[in-house]
């Protein structure tokens, strides 16, 4: 049982490049989330999904896109990378039924945009 996995662990992008951050979970969780973490700012929700084919914006969705074609995968797409997107990105998941809304986190992807 791998839990929540994220790839890559670290990436450097040039301004204007695009990339996809991968997230997968093997716990059959319905809900999945993408957060970004900036120093002293805690976690900000970018997008979330309540099931395959259903996604919605969080607090800071601009510059990002997501898709959820399967229960397991929830990739985050960055189009036209900007320095403001330098951050650590975390994917998380939780079951729909009552597990007390506990979220399970991946190890994170550190992104540097230069």
């Amino acid at each position: 049982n791998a839990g929540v996995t994220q790839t890559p662990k670290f990436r450097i992008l040039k301004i204007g490049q695009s990339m996809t951050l991968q997230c997968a979970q093997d716990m059959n969780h319905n809900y999945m989330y993408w957060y970004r973490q900036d120093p002293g700012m805690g976690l900000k929700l970018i997008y979330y999904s309540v099931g395959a084919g259903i996604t919605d914006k969080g607090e800071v969705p601009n510059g990002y896109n997501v898709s959820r074609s399967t229960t397991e995968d929830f990739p985050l797409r960055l189009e036209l990378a900007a320095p403001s997107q330098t951050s650590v990105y975390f994917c998380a998941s939780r079951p729909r039924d009552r597990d007390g809304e506990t979220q399970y986190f991946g190890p994170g992807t550190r992104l540097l945009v230069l």
Partner: protein
Amino acid sequence: AQSVTQPDIHITVSEGASLELRCNYSYGATPYLFWYVQSPGQGLQLLLKYFSGDTLVQGIKGFEAEFKRSQSSFNLRKPSVHWSDAAEYFCAVAWTGGFKTIFGAGTRLFVKA
């Protein structure tokens, strides 16, 4: 709007000393409350959570937290800190039927020998 406040950006304690990290939330009803810990370069790990019942909750690694409804607080405590407890700690709030969890800004704990 719902919010979570962790008033201390960082705290330094001596190894063996007691610890209390503060957390206050803003929400009308009783929420679900969480404390997560993040070691350097790692993701977040759940320490403990409160849903209902006994307001004193025990967690992993010797941590406990107490829910005080009158103060809208959920402070994290540990009687004797170990050097390995140095990390960042996040308080979080969720609610029944909601999809989202609101995280505080975090408190970084430094442990000195």
